[in-house]
């Protein structure tokens, strides 16, 4: 009797496995609109400097495209004719939570594509899941080159050039603009972005400015730790001339405040790869004379640059949110533009309402115009974008009573990034062949 029930149970079980496998639906997009999740830090130390401006940048451009209110070449309404319905989600809580959230976004809320992600940790952990769930995912800000150099992804793209570009451009800028750097150290966060940034900066410095020495005690505090007294002491005790940092979230603001009270910026040259948000947020408290980057032609570096798209973006953003767009506003907008360009192309090639595969093939290797420069998906088998990266020196504009940057220098993509098919470390080790800046 018992045996029989068990047998029947097993039969049903086998049956249910079968149906379970066959039930899996193939991904397809809805008819007249596309649902996209935009993920950025909405809470925590990274929300103010990066998450919220990024979210706003995306929102502004999405709304404008839906209404057909963008200047050329994005004047047509919609994404390949489709309206984009955005869901804004929070990136905080750690990688494991992000993976769980991503699954919820795709499987529970049914989004067709996901756009965003600021932390390199998020990107590295999301990409495999995007592959598993076969969902188009456009990464906006994160910088670790491992994303496309360790693996090939079909469903993941990144519209932001990776950390090698930022690091090489930084070294080039130091070579070109600062003449007294003999030794350097760094303070970077203890995760993929911080570790990679320091590693590549160090190699680039050794290749570009031979004779300089790196400290043997670079600092790697934990992300969001917010308190740097001991690290500042360590850096101050050393005799390195220049301190490199890839801090980007609230950490850069905390560090700058704590360090400036201790005369840090009078004693050291400071190069901040991604801390431009603090220039705006801290105003006069941000030390003048700091080398500042925005990881592209973004934010404060292009605030006064002419160009229809750029001026439209700055004005519309100020009108809607009351402040200047920051680096991440540009980065998120750039991802939206990539999606628009790819979907327009896909629908032109295949007729209305392209499916995920058609969008992917349109986006692969695509060249498109961003707000203040051109971008092309040249690396990572056509999934990793490259673009120019610039740096400048902070100053206070007394006339306009606002922060500004001087000596802005933009380095084109081929000078700062490896050519397609070459790994960053090999390219750096070989002395950056092809870089002629």
């Amino acid at each position, binding site marked *: 009797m018992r045996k029989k029930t068990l047998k029947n149970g097993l039969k049903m079980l086998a049956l249910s496995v079968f149906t379970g496998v066959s039930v899996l639906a193939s991904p397809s997009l809805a008819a007249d609109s596309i649902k996209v999740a935009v993920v950025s830090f*909405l*809470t*925590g*130390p990274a*929300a*103010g400097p990066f998450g*919220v401006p990024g979210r706003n940048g995306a929102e502004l451009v999405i709304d404008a495209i839906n209404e057909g209110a963008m200047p050329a070449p994005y004047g047509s309404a919609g994404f390949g004719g489709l309206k984009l319905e955005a869901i804004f989600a929070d990136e905080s809580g750690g990688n494991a939570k992000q993976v769980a959230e991503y699954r919820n976004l795709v499987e529970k809320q049914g989004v067709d594509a996901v756009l965003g992600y600021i932390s390199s940790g998020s990107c590295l952990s999301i990409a495999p899941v995007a592959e598993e769930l076969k969902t188009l995912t456009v990464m906006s800000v994160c910088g670790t080159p491992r994303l496309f150099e360790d693996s090939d992804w079909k469903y993941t793209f990144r519209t932001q050039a990776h950390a090698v570009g930022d690091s090489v451009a930084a070294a080039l800028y130091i070579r070109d603009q600062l003449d007294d750097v003999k030794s350097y150290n760094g303070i970077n966060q203890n995760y993929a972005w911080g570790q990679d940034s320091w590693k590549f900066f160090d190699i680039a410095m050794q290749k570009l400015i031979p004779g300089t020495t790196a400290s043997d*005690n670079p*600092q*790697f505090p934990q992300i*969001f*730790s*917010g*308190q740097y*007294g*001991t*690290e500042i*002491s*360590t850096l*101050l*005790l050393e005799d390195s001339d220049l301190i490199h940092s890839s801090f980007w979230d*609230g*950490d850069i*603001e*905390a560090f700058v*405040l*704590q360090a400036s*009270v*201790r*005369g*840090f910026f009078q*004693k050291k040259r400071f190069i901040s790869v991604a801390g431009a948000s603090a220039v705006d947020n801290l105003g006069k*408290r941000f030390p003048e004379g700091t080398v500042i980057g925005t990881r592209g032609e973004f934010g404060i570096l292009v605030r006064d640059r002419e160009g229809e798209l750029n001026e439209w973006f700055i004005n519309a953003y100020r009108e809607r949110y009351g402040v200047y767009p920051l680096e991440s506003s540009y980065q998120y907008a750039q991802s939206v533009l990539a999606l628009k360009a790819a979907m327009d192309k896909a629908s032109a090639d295949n007729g209305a309402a392209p499916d995920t595969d058609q969008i992917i093939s349109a986006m692969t290797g695509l060249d498109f115009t961003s707000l203040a420069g051109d971008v092309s998906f040249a690396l990572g088998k056509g999934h990793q974008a490259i673009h120019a990266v610039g740096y400048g020196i902070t100053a206070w504009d007394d006339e306009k009573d606002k922060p500004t940057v001087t000596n802005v220098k933009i380095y084109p993509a081929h000078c700062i990034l490896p050519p397609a098919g070459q790994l960053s470390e090999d390219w750096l080790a070989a002395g950056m062949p092809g870089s002629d800046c």
Partner: protein
Amino acid sequence: MQTTFTILLDGLSYASYLFIVSVGLTIIFGVMKILNVAHGGFYAWGAYSAAYAIGLAADLGFPDWFGFVLIGLSSMGVGLVLGLLIERLILRRLYDHEEVIIILATFGLFLVLEDLILLVFGVNPYFAYQPMVFLGSVELGGILRDVYSLTLLGLAALVAFACWYALDRTKWGKILTTVIYDREISLAIGINVNAVFVWTFVAGATLGALGGAYISPTLSVAPGIGIDIIVLSFAVVVIGGMGSIPGALIGALMVGILRAVAVHKFPEFELFVIFVVMAAVLMVRPEGLFAPVKARRI
């Protein structure tokens, strides 16, 4: 030499900060036998309310030194309001539960306090740098230091002295010592143990809040700041001996200096070393290095 001096100073200032936070935890444990996870919540509330008040005062044009007044006021306010509410409404009903259940209840409280912060203060970080900027910097051991962090040493000494004085030189202290030694005897000789518990908890909460409030000018006050400090102050309290004030002092000094040495010399051991010491102390001397005298009843 210069490095040693700097490490020592960094360690001392970090230790002072840890001591101020931990002493509240250890007092609560000593008297009430409650290991209060919600202490991290008091810390965070102290930091937030001080940072908020300082920011507001700066916007309203108050002078920078006024921040110190606000730090004191906000930690007392947080300690009094949260301490009273939590002791009266929640802990009071749990005293006859197992100690681990009480720990868990305080964990629940901690989660609640964390989110109340988000609801009240929002999700963006606060910077209350005015008091730190106001005090400026001074050169010590060849490098500039912010005076504000150095005043932590003074505050810690003050707190230590106040605790010693209150426990050793006042009638209140005698009562407290009796309750710590034996709760039942205290009841028998007519001590109002309930009142002792309430005010102990409020005092402990205030000290936790003071730790957060005083440190807030030197960091970005952001969601989640209470999480790490709990385990750190647990480490301090366990190393020194749960319930012992001199223990908290020694524990804070050990953790502070170890961390400073680690950050300067072996950054990868920063967190690891603290908990290894905590585990080692528990293994060798479970009652801590400076365990208070206990009435043994076995």
